């Protein structure tokens, strides 16, 4: 076999490489950093820093914060959990009163998980934080809640009538909230249309990493105070809080996975380029 045909044979074999080896190596790259963290560095991006700074400087004891969820369980472990846990912890630390409500059927159960993962300190359910459950209707429900809280919400998620919850006596409309955040992976503008524009309430997003490009125009125009997106956003927020959690623990795996994707891109294109050149020579 000549050198030329050997080279061609190699590129053909590489082009037809069994994907299972690639998957196996990828799985190993994701698992190893979780078991043995490398402690790779992380840079905090400006939307996350601005969100953190806003909460730090503007949200204080007794300030009411509405957290509207449109989450999905599939994305929960990586896209939402690190960010919502870190942000909720920060808000609890600041002494804010937190009102969780959602238009995602699975969200109340996820909110329960959040309650179980954070240090609530002396905060009491019904006095300092509440889970108001799930309401269908998406943006319409968000709007109905803004206009008249009691027209939409009669009981909390656990079936307690809202008039028996002390913190619910403090809210009637959107105007009673200091800050509203939407935890979502899809519709970005609901919050602006229903809270920012009509009531002038400060808004922020906790979203999936794919939403960064969608959120950026609103952040650039300062319509939102900032946003915390995906696993990386959660890790950045944990860095700012100096409280490592699930986000930072998973960041090494994320870095390894993304680097692997980048390397595969380069590798696949080099092999393709050499193969094409060889084929043209023939």
């Amino acid at each position: 076999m000549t050198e030329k045909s050997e080279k061609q044979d190699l590129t053909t074999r590489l082009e037809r490489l069994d994907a299972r080896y690639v998957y196996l190596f990828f799985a190993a790259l994701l698992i190893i950093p979780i078991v043995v963290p490398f402690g790779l560095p992380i840079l905090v991006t400006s939307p996350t820093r601005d969100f953190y700074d806003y909460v730090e400087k503007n949200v204080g004891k007794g300030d009411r914060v509405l957290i509207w969820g449109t989450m999905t369980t599939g994305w929960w472990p990586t896209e939402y959990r690190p960010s919502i846990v870190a942000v909720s912890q920060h808000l609890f630390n600041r002494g804010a009163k937190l009102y969780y409500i959602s238009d995602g059927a699975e969200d109340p159960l996820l909110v329960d998980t959040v309650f179980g993962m954070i240090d609530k300190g002396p905060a009491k359910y019904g006095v300092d934080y509440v889970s108001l459950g799930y309401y269908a209707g998406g943006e319409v429900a968000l709007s109905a809640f803004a206009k008249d809280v009691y027209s939409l919400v009669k009981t909390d998620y656990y079936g307690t009538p809202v008039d028996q919850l002390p913190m619910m006596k403090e809210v009637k409309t959107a105007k009673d909230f200091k800050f509203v955040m939407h935890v979502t992976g899809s519709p970005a503008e609901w919050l602006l249309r229903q809270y920012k524009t009509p009531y002038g309430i400060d808004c922020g997003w906790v979203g999936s990493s794919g939403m960064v490009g969608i959120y950026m125009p609103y952040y650039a125009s300062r319509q939102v105070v900032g946003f915390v997106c995906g696993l990386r956003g959660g890790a950045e927020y944990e860095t700012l809080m100096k409280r490592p959690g699930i986000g930072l623990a998973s960041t090494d795996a994320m870095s390894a996975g993304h680097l692997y994707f980048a390397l595969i891109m380069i590798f696949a294109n080099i092999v393709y380029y050499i193969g094409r050149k060889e084929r043209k020579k023939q």
Partner: protein
Amino acid sequence: MSSYTLRNQIPLAIASLILVIVFAEYFLAMPKAVSDFISGLQKWTVILSAFAMVLSLLSVTRIHVPRVMKTGANMSDRALSAWLLVIMVITILVGIGFDTPSAQYQFIFRNLFSPLSSGVWAIMAFYYCGAILRSFRARSLEATVLVVAGFLVVTRNTPVISAIIPWWESLGTWIMNVPGVSGMRGLVIGVGVGVVAMGIRMLLQMERRPITGEA
């Protein structure tokens, strides 16, 4: 009154009237009666949306029950459909019987639904891997733009690269903030104008498709 009027004109007139009222209420200070009427409409929407769940439940049942009953069909398809229906009925019964915050329902959610749902999404990462390896190649100018953009996004979103090479993060941020934001703004404004145009067409009854299906 003709059946055409009953079927088409009246629903269109109601839709147009409600559109005007809701639109006006958003921008103008309206009497309390109007605001209360809008609140009522919103409550209807929330309730109707909740009924969409019932519709999806019926739809799943309608598709899978005949599949299970069909003799001579693929055995594994029948078994999977039967499994789906059994799990669905169990989850509904536990939800209704014990309520969703109960330990029983939480058990199903935390130990069955949540890992399965997350697992499905996690598998996507392997599909990405395979897709990058097999298809993400600079075969043409358009494909090269896609490959370069993909490479930039992946590396910009890699925490360790941003930390080690800060200018790479700055480059990514510039791309996001300048060309990205400009493109997105164009898109958002375009969609906004389109929605307004569609609203006006509906108000003028020029847009009948949502109700009548005719152009």
